[in-house]
């Protein structure tokens, strides 16, 4: 800011005046104190014999007379909270499951569904039946676990590896397939790449490809929820949950979002899936600090690091986070969920170019969120091999059924290409549509439009 202004002051009397006015304000015009903002009264003045800094920028800092630079190495890494270890054994003595056995099995089925769908759709992409796919293998617990602790009216901003969130909130297999095949039932009208799901009914914003843009938007949505609740207290208080990866947390938008959510007290839960890789960039190359969690503290945000392969830890942390996010009118919370991206980044990536296959196999064998919950359920006696076999087979059948149904459906009307550019169709949109119709009518032999609902007729005004 300072630099910017330095470069513009010559031109503009107002902006010069501006500095003068600000000084005046500091000296003579106390303004009401706002949360998180040092009031002007505090000013740079210093009370005699004070033990604490009263510079407005760090009001809680004590003076010291030892010259010492703080070194990150002197601080232990933030701990990772877990409830159940990789053998399915409960390690938190205070832990009691807060949901029924049936509900636990439902969570498990959602994780299983997502992982089976991922394998089938990955192969379908390889067969050329869709252009692109992203799997979430290894990260199912973060998505399903966190989503299971939100209210159904809470708002979600996700990245593109949170199929589990969609499944948990009620996105059906047919909904996934309709979007993936961009058919006439796709609520996105076939305009988005595969896996860019969205659902108005489930309060999940449509996924946006550019990395991290959803994070400041989530802060804004949280601000909107807060305003709505303030204006109409009959609307129950709600939070926004915002998902992103360790790579996205390097984008400027991440930092902007956390800072603005903190300063504007927005009720938003930031959930980082730290899976070790941003496409091919490992976290060793991505950052030097203590993961993503350490950054939350820097922005003055309540933060926790959890074992993302432990659905119980994710659930406990999310429940508490939601409570914190709604406290005192709203505040952001950061959860860093540690996982491992078992899969390639997407169908456009071959991760064995940058990591050893054996490393991945090790992870698969050593620790996996689905197996961990399965072991827990088996230890509790509510799950066994038969149930496992039955669940896997029926899910697979169901996926394949919806797959072939969605693949055969017609494509959205050609008309949708020109709609929703604006709320209303502009004369330009209409003119383009008329031009296309004229062209298709002139060369009917050249274009097969039978696949599209309504064919050429959808282009009629």
């Amino acid at each position, binding site marked *: 800011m300072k630099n910017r202004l330095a470069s513009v002051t010559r031109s503009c009397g107002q902006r010069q005046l501006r500095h003068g006015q600000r000084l005046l304000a500091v000296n003579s015009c106390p303004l009401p104190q706002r949360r998180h903002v040092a009031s002007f009264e505090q000013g740079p003045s210093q009370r005699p014999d004070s033990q604490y800094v009263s510079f407005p920028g760090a009001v809680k800092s004590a003076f010291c007379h030892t010259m010492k630079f703080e070194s990150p190495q002197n601080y232990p890494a933030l701990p990772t909270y877990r409830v159940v270890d990789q053998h399915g054994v409960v390690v938190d003595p205070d832990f009691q499951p807060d949901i029924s056995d049936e509900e636990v099995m439902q969570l498990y089925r959602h994780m299983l569904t997502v992982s089976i769908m991922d394998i089938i759709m990955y192969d379908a992409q390889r067969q050329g039946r869709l252009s692109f796919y992203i799997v979430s293998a290894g990260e199912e617990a973060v998505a399903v676990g966190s989503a299971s602790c939100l209210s159904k009216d809470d708002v979600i901003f996700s990245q593109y590896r949170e199929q589990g969130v969609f499944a948990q909130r009620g996105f059906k297999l047919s909904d996934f397939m309709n979007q993936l095949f961009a058919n006439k039932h796709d609520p996105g009208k076939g305009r988005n790449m595969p896996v860019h799901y969205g659902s108005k009914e489930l309060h999940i914003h449509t996924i*946006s490809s550019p990395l991290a843009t959803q994070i400041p*938007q989530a802060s*804004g949505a949280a601000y909107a929820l807060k305003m709505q609740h303030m204006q109409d207290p009959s609307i129950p208080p709600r939070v926004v949950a915002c998902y992103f990866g360790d790579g996205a947390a390097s984008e400027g938008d991440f930092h902007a979002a956390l800072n603005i959510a903190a300063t504007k007290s927005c009720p938003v839960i930031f959930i980082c899936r730290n899976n070790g890789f941003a496409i091919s960039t490992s976290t060793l190359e991505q950052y030097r600090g203590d993961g993503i969690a350490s950054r939350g503290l820097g922005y003055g945000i309540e933060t926790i690091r959890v074992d993302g392969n432990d659905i119980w830890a994710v659930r406990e942390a999310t429940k508490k986070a939601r409570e914190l996010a709604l406290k005192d009118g709203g505040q952001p919370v950061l959860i860093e969920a540690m996982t491992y991206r078992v899969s390639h980044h997407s169908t456009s990536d071959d991760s064995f170019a940058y990591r050893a296959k054996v490393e991945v196999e090790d992870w698969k064998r050593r620790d996996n969120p689905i197996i961990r919950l399965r072991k827990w359920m088996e230890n509790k006696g509510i799950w066994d091999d038969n149930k496992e076999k039955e669940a896997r087979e029926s899910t697979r059948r169901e996926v394949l059924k919806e797959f072939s149904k969605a693949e055969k459906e017609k494509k959205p009307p050609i008309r949708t290409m020109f709609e929703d550019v604006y709320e209303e169709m502009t004369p330009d949109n209409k003119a383009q549509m008329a031009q296309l119709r004229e062209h298709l009518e002139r060369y009917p032999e050249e274009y097969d439009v039978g696949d599209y609902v309504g064919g050429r007729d959808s282009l009629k005004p």
Partner: protein
Amino acid sequence: MSSLLRPAVRLAASAAAASSRVPAAARISKSVSPFSVSKQSAVSAFASQSRTYASDAPSGTKDYTVRDALNEALAEELEANDKVFILGEEVAQYNGAYKVTKGLLDRFGERRVIDTPVTESGFTGLAVGAALSGLHPVVEFMTWNFAMQAIDQIVNSGAKTLYMSGGIQPCNITFRGPNGFASGVGAQHSQDYSAWYGSVPGLKVVAPWSAEDAKGLLKAAIRDPNPVVFLENELMYGQSFPMSEAAQKDDFVIPFGKAKIERQGKDLTMVTLSRCVGQCLVAAENLKKKYGVEVEVINLRSVKPIDIEAIVKSVKKTRRLLSVESGFPAFGVGAEILALTMEYAFDYLDAPAGRVTGADVPTPYAAKLEDMAFPNEPVIEAYAAKLLRL
């Protein structure tokens, strides 16, 4: 004629204009330096941008600065709709870097007039998120130059989400702030973004000139369910214009996509926008005095959608076209106007259409160099005269 306005060409043009048919103001200064030709005229001409109707002013007409008109528009829309809020750097306690938001914090409180940290991508992302959740934010950029830090949020999220969500997520948001060169603010604070945002499907882009434009277009922008880029001009904030009685009311809106004929004419169509409208009106008066020609001046008001019908209609009458704007020449607003005219009215043109634009260089800081980098009245006049073979 070379249609792109580069400094050397401009120098030649203004020198030629000065030597062949010397304007009264220029005659005096010609002996000093060709540079000051433009400068002096610019100053005198600038003053006359603020037209008032001393004797024949319709009753009820009142003078408004562009700043006051914008402020009134914001206040009225904040009053009218609970969902509207404004945010940006220093918009609240400080009343805005240019005082456009003066008094709004006191009137509407800190929930609706919000100071943000210095993070364009952050507060723009926040506003887009709030818009996607049903509020109607107005984002003030201290200048549009700083919005480059947030352009991904404006273009990739603001403009495209309605379409990419299948029509389920409207984004009613207004992005506003001063655009274009000001005075001595250097290359990084002088850009004109009309063409940038004008090229994006999903965005609407408007640029007011007068106080009525400012009020009517800003109110329309806030009410419009689509994302709107509202390009103000720092040099116009303090300019006064008469505001009709109708425009003073709180239901006054100007529809997008409709240009306004600011001056009727039959010999040449000047299509222009923002501050250049006033410059064109001055140039038109001078051309009338000197050559007796009548120039029609079209104030575009709206860059996207652009009112090509008004342009074609005028060109059919005048058979000549000159576009005048202060953006860079390449792929600019002028380029679009000429291309559209070529597509829809080629047969009506009696001469190649011309464009006057800013120079194709990063804007220099030094005052005299900066003067050379943008169109002014004598340059517009000289190009018009050349196009009309006067």
